[in-house]
């Protein structure tokens, strides 16, 4: 009886009327209600006029063949893009009241699904042939959809795999990589050895694998990364002793740690010395400082060592890595005493104002087992001749400047020269 257009107008009029009544009752006859009622009346008049004249009935006065009318065109095919677009809008809304990155994700979803929806709608009007329209859409969209979709899918899989790896322990990580590589090789070999295998079968295997990785990644991602223990370092012990001497002394009195500075102590400190030899990250391109069995310290630079060297020379302000090798029979640490620092920072007043009572600048390795090695990284911001007049108690008797030394081994001294 009524055409689709008429039904729409009748429904709209009914909703408008209902809204007007609700608003009018709620607002108690204010000016807005009058305006809204006027608009509703106008809409109802239009609806009545349309129903009487049947203007929205394409068949009524249309002389053209039925198949040429708009109403006779194929109905739009099903599309997921409006749903995606609406989802994007929701994500944006959620992001606006939560976190900014969520807004960005929503905008990306909006743009992507909006573009797809636009292309989809445009292609459906290309012709009355649905198959042709689908080809038109594919020709335009696929060159973008495939690479972007592939990259996104790959990114999700890689991200999922990374979550898995981060949740596993060191050994299990190695195993996981081995298993993953083995699976890839085996599956690849199986697929390659059966050239007649259908694309559906291959795709299914890949999809199952991808879903498994993403699912495992999601689970492990929610569980969080593995606990990575943070151990106290020698630097922390050194700073603790210098900055909080009273608490440090109290801890030593309670037997929690040895007394004295860690860099001047041959004793083992909890945690800092427990994991010796596990942090050597470099094996070449560095100086080596060697503690011999007889208790002497010597250095071995990359390349030939200069004949007649009186100490190890490094450039000023240059990050220097030294590998300490303990060839003695005892657990030992290598320490470096860079003298006592200046106590003022203003240049003009700083000149010559060294405070001999100030705490030393020291850095040291952990206790290294016999035959072990450890890396010591340091930087000397000042030249050693700046400390010519400042005695260094960790050097030989009467020495000044910078010195490597080994706590507990009086004969192990090596001068560090910074020109």
């Amino acid at each position: 009886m009524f055409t689709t257009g008429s039904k729409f107008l009748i429904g709209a009029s009914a909703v408008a009327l209902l809204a007007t009544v609700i608003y009018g009752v709620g607002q108690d006859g204010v000016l807005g209600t009058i305006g809204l009622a006027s608009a509703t009346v106008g809409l109802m008049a239009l609806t009545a006029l349309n129903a009487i004249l049947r203007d929205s009935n394409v068949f009524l006065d249309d002389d053209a063949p039925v198949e040429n009318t708009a109403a006779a065109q194929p109905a739009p095919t099903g599309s997921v893009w409006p749903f995606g677009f609406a989802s994007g809008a929701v994500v944006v809304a959620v992001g606006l009241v939560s976190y900014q990155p969520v807004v960005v994700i929503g905008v990306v979803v909006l743009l992507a699904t909006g573009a797809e929806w636009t292309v989809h709608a445009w292609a459906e009007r290309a012709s009355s042939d649905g198959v042709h329209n689908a080809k038109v859409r594919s020709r335009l969209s696929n060159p973008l959809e495939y690479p972007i979709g592939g990259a996104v899918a790959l990114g999700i899989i890689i991200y999922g795999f990374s979550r898995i790896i981060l949740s596993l322990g060191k050994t299990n990580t190695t195993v996981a990589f081995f298993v993953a590589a083995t699976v890839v090789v085996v599956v690849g070999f199986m697929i390659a050895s059966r050239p007649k295998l259908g694309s559906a079968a291959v795709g299914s295997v890949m999809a199952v694998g991808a879903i498994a990785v993403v699912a495992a990644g999601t689970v492990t991602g929610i569980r969080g990364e593995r606990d990575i223990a943070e151990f106290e370092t020698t630097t922390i012990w050194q700073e603790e002793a210098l900055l909080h001497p009273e608490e440090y002394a109290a801890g030593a009195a309670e037997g929690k740690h040895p007394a004295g500075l860690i860099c001047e102590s041959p004793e083992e400190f909890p945690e800092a010395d427990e994991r010796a030899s596990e942090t050597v990250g470099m094996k070449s391109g560095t100086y080596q400082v060697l503690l011999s069995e007889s208790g002497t310290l010597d250095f071995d630079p990359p390349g030939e060592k200069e004949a007649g060297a009186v100490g190890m020379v490094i450039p000023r302000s240059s990050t220097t890595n030294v590998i300490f090798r303990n060839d003695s029979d005892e657990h030992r640490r290598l320490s470096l005493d860079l003298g006592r620092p200046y106590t003022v920072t203003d240049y003009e007043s700083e000149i010559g104002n060294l405070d001999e009572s100030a705490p030393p600048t020291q850095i040291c390795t952990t206790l290294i087992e016999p035959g072990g090695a450890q890396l010591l990284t340091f930087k000397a911001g000042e030249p050693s001749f700046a400390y010519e007049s400042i005695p260094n108690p960790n050097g030989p008797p009467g020495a000044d400047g910078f010195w490597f030394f080994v706590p507990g081994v009086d004969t192990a001294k090596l001068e560090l020269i910074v020109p």
Partner: protein
Amino acid sequence: MSARTDVANHEGTRERAARATTSLKTVTTRTQGARLAKVGGVVVLTGLIAGCAKNAPQDTFQPRGTNAERINDLALPVFYIAGVVGVIVLGVIAWTVMRYRDRGQPIPVQTHGKPALEIALTILPALILIGVAIPTVGTVMALNDTDDTECVVNVTGQQWWWEFDYPVQDGCMPGGITEPIVTSGQMAIPVDTNVLIRGTSRDVIHSFWIPRLNGKRDMVPGRVHNLRMQANEPGLYAGQCAEFCGLSHANMRMEVAALTQDGFNRWAANQLEAYESPVEGTVAADGESAFVTNCSSCHQVNGLEAADGNPIISRPDVGVYPGAAPNLTNLMTRTDFAGASWSLLREECRKEVWEAEPDQFTDRYLEGVTDDCFNEVDLREWLRNAPAKKPMYADPTKLAETGGLYRGMPYLALSEDQIDLLLAYLLERK
């Protein structure tokens, strides 16, 4: 004339016209070919002429040291072999393209595989590569050998200059080096001596390269890389940082001054001479005060003392991101400054040094920067506004990433009077 004759005449005319067109095309093609040949000839000739520059201080094909000669002896034959292979390959491709170009002929029968040819085309390049690899590996190993070095120099790269320090050692000269020497921009070495360079960097990766003496070596923060260097004859050898290292990478130059052994001894002795303050009452003496006030916080001058007699120690790590600034103790014993980018010598004096005969070079170089030869202009401009002369990260409003520390020398807002004083003082740093 019959209709048949008319037709025959008409066809004959068409044939003649076709032949004429073909002939015209041939002539046109020949003319175009000749023109292309001329243009190509000019391009090739220009390239050849450009490669014949007489003054090419960074020409790796003019080696002046054993190591550079080794590289050259390897590179040239490889270049020739690669050139011959390249010409053959390109020639075959060109011939194939021309011979089998599309003329509308039917597609020939497709065949799959030609084992004999494929094996031959695999073995031949493999043999060539093996032939190249053997001397290459030998040369690389020879270049990395440091057993025969007799003198050690620590080289440190920093945005955008090079520092050279000579550790205490028995080598380099009779009697050895008794105190560390620090200089920058120009590295002095004794001629005919294998020098071991121990290189590192304070900030980013740099690459040390003196093309006429040896190949490149990356200088990496936290690591020490070795490079052997030796010069056959006295002279100045120019180099350039060969790893992009930031804003003024192009201005990070360096030079090696190869001196006779006696000349190197004199150079080293001069570097270790005790500091002498300028004579009181002179402009240079006032300049010393100006230097202490404006420059000594970053630039070290060994021996410079404060009024109380204590040594003045620079602390460039407080204001400069990489943590160092050039040591200016003997500035005027080198011939350039600011990453060897500007000369301390006037042009004619600079030419005298660079173009000195090997037997005269050492004496001329050791004269240093004399009053007559001093290029005041560039150094004055540098002191007036260093960032304007050399691009550096020296804008105090844009140092957030480095915690307020400069990369390079900042603008010091020195007055012209202060600059006069500093120039007088620096001119005495010999």
